[in-house]
C-alpha cells in the first residue's frame, strides 16, 4: 500500500496531461490544419532536419561508440563523460554553447564567415542543434551493446580470413544492429522534439528554422487550438516511436 499510492499518483502525473491534450484537441480542424502552408512547411522541415540529425548521429556516433568501447585510447574515460554531458545539460545552454562555437561571433566564427558557411540561424543550424542533443543517446546505446558483445565471434571471423574492416561490417555491425536501430530511434525522437537548443542557436524563422515544436510554441500565442492539434500530432509520432522500440526494450 505504501508503494501503490505513490505509484498511482505518478501514473496520474504522466497520464492526466496527455489525456487532457487529447480531449482538447479540435479533431475536426485537424485536416484543415495539416493543409496549412506554415504547418506543412514546419512538418517538412522537422522531418528533414531530424532525419539529417539522426543520419549525422549514426555516421559519427557508431565510430565514437566503437572507440569508447573497444580501444584503450588515453582520455577515453574523460571522453565518455563528456559525451553524456549533453544528456543532462539544459538544452538552452547547449544552444548558447553552439552559438559561442559556430555563431558569427563564435570561436570558429571568422573561419566560418570566410567560408561563407555560418550555420547559426539556418536549417543547418537546426541540424547541428538537434545532433548536439541526440548524439549521446545513440553513442550510449551502441556503446552498451558493444561492451556486452563477446569478442569471440569477431576473433573467429579474424581467424577465418576476414580483415578488421570486414569483421566490423559482417559480424560486429549485424550483431549490434538492433541496438543501433534502437539508438537511432531514440536519437531521432530527441531530435524531432528538440526546442531549447534550436531556438537559441537557429532561431524560429518560419520556413527556415521553425520546426514543429517551435511552431507549436508560436501558435500557442495566437491560435491555441491549432497548437493543441499539432501537439496531438507530435504525441502520435512519439507513441509510434515507443511502439517501434518496444520489442527491444523488453
Amino acid at each position, binding site marked *: 500500500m505504501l508503494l501503490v499510492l505513490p505509484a498511482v499518483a505518478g501514473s496520474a502525473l504522466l497520464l492526466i496531461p496527455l489525456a487532457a491534450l487529447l480531449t482538447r484537441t479540435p479533431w475536426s480542424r485537424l485536416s484543415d490544419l495539416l493543409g496549412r502552408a506554415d504547418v506543412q512547411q514546419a512538418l517538412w522541415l522537422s522531418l528533414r532536419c531530424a532525419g539529417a540529425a539522426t543520419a549525422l548521429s549514426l555516421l559519427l556516433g557508431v565510430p565514437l561508440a566503437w572507440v569508447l568501447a573497444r580501444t584503450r585510447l588515453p582520455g577515453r574515460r574523460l571522453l565518455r563523460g563528456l559525451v553524456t554531458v549533453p544528456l543532462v545539460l539544459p538544452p538552452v545552454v547547449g544552444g548558447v554553447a553552439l552559438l559561442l562555437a559556430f555563431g558569427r561571433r563564435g570561436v570558429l566564427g571568422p573561419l566560418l564567415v570566410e567560408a561563407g558557411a555560418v550555420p547559426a540561424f539556418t536549417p543547418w543550424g537546426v541540424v547541428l542543434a538537434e545532433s548536439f542533443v541526440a548524439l549521446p543517446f545513440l553513442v550510449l546505446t551502441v556503446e552498451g551493446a558493444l561492451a556486452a558483445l563477446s569478442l*569471440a*565471434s569477431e576473433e*573467429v*571471423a*579474424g*581467424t*577465418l*580470413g576476414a580483415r578488421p574492416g570486414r569483421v566490423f561490417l559482417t559480424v560486429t555491425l549485424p*550483431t549490434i544492429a538492433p541496438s543501433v536501430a534502437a539508438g537511432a530511434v531514440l536519437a531521432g525522437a530527441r531530435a524531432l522534439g528538440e526546442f531549447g537548443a534550436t531556438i537559441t542557436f537557429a532561431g524560429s524563422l518560419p520556413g527556415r528554422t521553425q520546426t514543429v515544436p517551435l511552431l507549436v510554441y508560436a501558435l500557442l500565442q495566437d491560435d491555441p487550438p491549432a497548437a493543441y492539434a499539432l501537439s496531438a500530432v507530435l504525441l502520435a509520432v512519439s507513441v509510434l516511436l515507443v511502439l517501434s522500440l518496444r520489442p527491444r526494450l523488453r
Partner: protein
Amino acid sequence: MRASITSALVRADLVAEPGQVVAVVGPNGAGKTSLLRALAGLLPSTGTVELAGRDVSALPLHARGIGWVPQSPSLFAHLSARDNAGYALRARGMSRRAARTAADEWLRRLGIGHLGDSRPGALSGGQVARVALARALAADPALVLLDEPLAALDAATKDEVRRLLRSTLAGGRAPVLVVTHDPVDVAALADSVLVLEDGAVVQHGSPAEVAARPRSAWVAGLLGQNAWRGIADETGLRTASMGSTGHVTGHIAAAETLPAGTPALALCEPAAVTLHRQRPSGSARTVLAGQVGELRSLGGRVRVTVRSDPQVTAEVTVGAATELGLADGGLVWAAIKATEVRLVAL
C-alpha cells in the same frame, strides 16, 4: 607444423605432421587455450610458427589460414548455418554462390545438410558444434585448433560428434590441436598427447607412451585408465593389438554392450582390475594372464602393467602388491568385472 613460441602465459615447442591429431591436455590454467590463441595470432607471442612450410608468426591473424573452434562455438547469430560455414570462403573472395555450394557440401559431410537455412538460435548443441566445425574446416586451413569441442555436449551427442571428428580429421592436410579434459577423446582421436603444466610443455608423445610413462601425477591420473580399441560383439569388445607374440586378438567382457560390429573403445579404471596368482574362477568377467611388467608407486597404491594380450594396467594397494609378491615378477592373472567396463562407440 613446427612451432616454437613464447607468450606471457605459455611457452611451447612442438612439431606436428599433416593430418596428425595432437591432444592438448593439462590442469585448468595450464595454458592450453593460451597456446591455441597464440598459435592463431590472437595472443601476442614471440618465436616462429611454421605452417605448411611458411613462417606465419609475423602475419596478422586473418592471414594465417587457421581453422579455430573456440570453447563457446560463437556462431554468427545473424547468418544461416550455410553462410556460417561459407564465411571463410567469402572472406577469401569466393563468390556468394560458390561459397554456398561448398558450404552445403561441408554441412552434408557433417550430417546436417538439411539445416543449411537454419539460424544458429534454432540449432541443438550438437548441430551448433557441427556448424562450427564446418566453418573452421571449409577453407582448407593450414592448422586446425579445437578448444574443447565436445565439452558442452551431453553424453550421447558427445559420442556422436566425437565419431564425426574422428572420421573428418583423419587423413586431413592440416595438423589438428584439440584441447580436452576427457581421456576418451585422447584414446579415440589423438595420435599424440601434449601435456601442458604451468604454461610449459611437460611431455609430448604417443598416448600409449604418455600413459605408460607419465611425467606428471596429473597426466597419470588423466590417462591412467585402461583403453582398448576393437570391434563390439554380443558380449563385449573383440580387441586386436600388437602383443608380445605378434598380432593377437583378445576379448573384454562388458555388461552393457553395443550393436555387434561397431568400432568401439572399452574403458576401465585400473583400480577396478584385480590381480591373482592363481587363475580366478567366476564367469561374468574377463581374465587375462601375463607377466608382471612395470611397477609404479602412486602414493599409497601401486600401478602394475600386466603384459597380457591385450595389455592391462591395474592399481592395487601396497599391501596387496607385497602379498602377491609382484616385485618378483612372474605370471599373474588380471580379472575385470563386466560391470566395470564401459564401451564407447567410435
